[in-house]
């Protein structure tokens, strides 16, 4: 009985494989040889896992959230207090954001301390640095969206920090805010960045980053005399 089911699923697998070559892709990605490593090597996968959570919960939040000054906070309150499981979806996205920052930094520290950024993995490292900056950008733009006092003042402080950039600081702040101060223009800007621009860049870079991890393999733990 079990045998017949297995042959049937194998036949379906063969049919799809003949037309897509998925078995090779699968084994290249998941059945590759790796050196004996420790749990710290799971930090990248953990980051990827939380990223998936952020994408799923983020998409779900856009079904109700409205990036418009008069309604933004009301829609967030509606999600949190009136929708079934809205508290859960928003909570996952909220705490997932912190987890992203923590895990990305921890993953970076592992790479630095084990010297995993060296030849031939420099491009992996460079895309990783860009991904870290993107995660910060996500955190910054997402923080304004609940449109409450904390969100407002955090964005005031954040853009004032950008303002002290040499030479282009005040211009940079104006571009970020869409004006001299936080206004009706600021909220849709941050929203557009948070749900369209940044995800597009992030997912492209994640694709490159993961391709390189598979292509070059992972490093082993450095030995004492290395």
């Amino acid at each position, binding site marked *: 009985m079990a045998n017949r089911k297995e042959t049937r699923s194998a036949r379906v697998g063969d049919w799809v494989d003949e037309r897509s070559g998925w078995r090779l892709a699968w084994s290249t990605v998941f059945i590759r040889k790796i050196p004996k490593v420790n749990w710290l090597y799971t930090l990248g996968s953990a980051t990827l896992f939380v990223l998936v959570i952020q994408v799923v919960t983020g998409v779900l939040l856009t*079904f109700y959230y409205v990036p418009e000054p008069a*309604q933004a906070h009301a829609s967030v309150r*509606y999600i949190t207090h009136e*929708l079934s499981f809205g508290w859960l979806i928003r909570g996952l996205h909220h705490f997932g954001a912190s987890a992203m920052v923590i895990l990305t930094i921890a993953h970076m520290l592992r790479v630095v301390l084990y010297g995993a950024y060296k030849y031939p993995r420099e491009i992996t490292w460079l895309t990783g640095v860009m991904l870290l900056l993107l995660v910060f950008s996500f955190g910054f733009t997402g923080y304004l969206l609940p449109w409450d006092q904390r969100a407002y003042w955090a964005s005031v402080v954040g853009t004032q920090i950008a303002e002290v950039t040499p030479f282009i600081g005040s211009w940079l702040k104006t571009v970020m805010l869409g004006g001299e101060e936080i206004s009706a223009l600021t909220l849709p800007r941050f929203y557009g960045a948070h749900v369209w621009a940044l995800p597009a860049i992030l997912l492209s870079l994640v694709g490159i980053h993961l391709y390189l991890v598979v292509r070059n393999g992972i490093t082993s733990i450095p030995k004492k005399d290395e």
Partner: protein
Amino acid sequence: MADVTRRRFLVRAIAVMAGAIAAMVGAPAIGYLIGPSSDRSGSGDWIPLGTATSVQPGDPVLMKATVERKSGWLTDSQEVSVFVSTENGQNFTALSNVCTHLGCRVRWVPDQSGFFCPCHNAVFARDGSVATGPPPRPLDSFETKLEDGTIFIKEA
């Protein structure tokens, strides 16, 4: 089950955990997405229309009330117009003034003792039933009650 290898066990364990995590997010997500569609807030509320003395036996009287309707996080007020009539000053019938054909507003024509819809010349009888014209069903009626001299209708 002695032939379960370590590899097979781990593959199954991972599949079970992944399924559990997907279910933990996926099941609430379905409730989250379909939740508002089943939300019927406002239905069953009693809406005050006006004093009972303004409706006398005879011609139906058009009465209006403003209803606060919640749509998500917004509340907007809608005007509800109802033809109220009575035969004895005790029991009231309330008929919607919205034609059941395409939603135009009907008006009461005393000469013909019927509700007339200007859009396609439909006529409804005093009790709301279709006399002539295209409407598929009688005018919608509301449950009514009389309390301290005020007529209420129950929101559908």
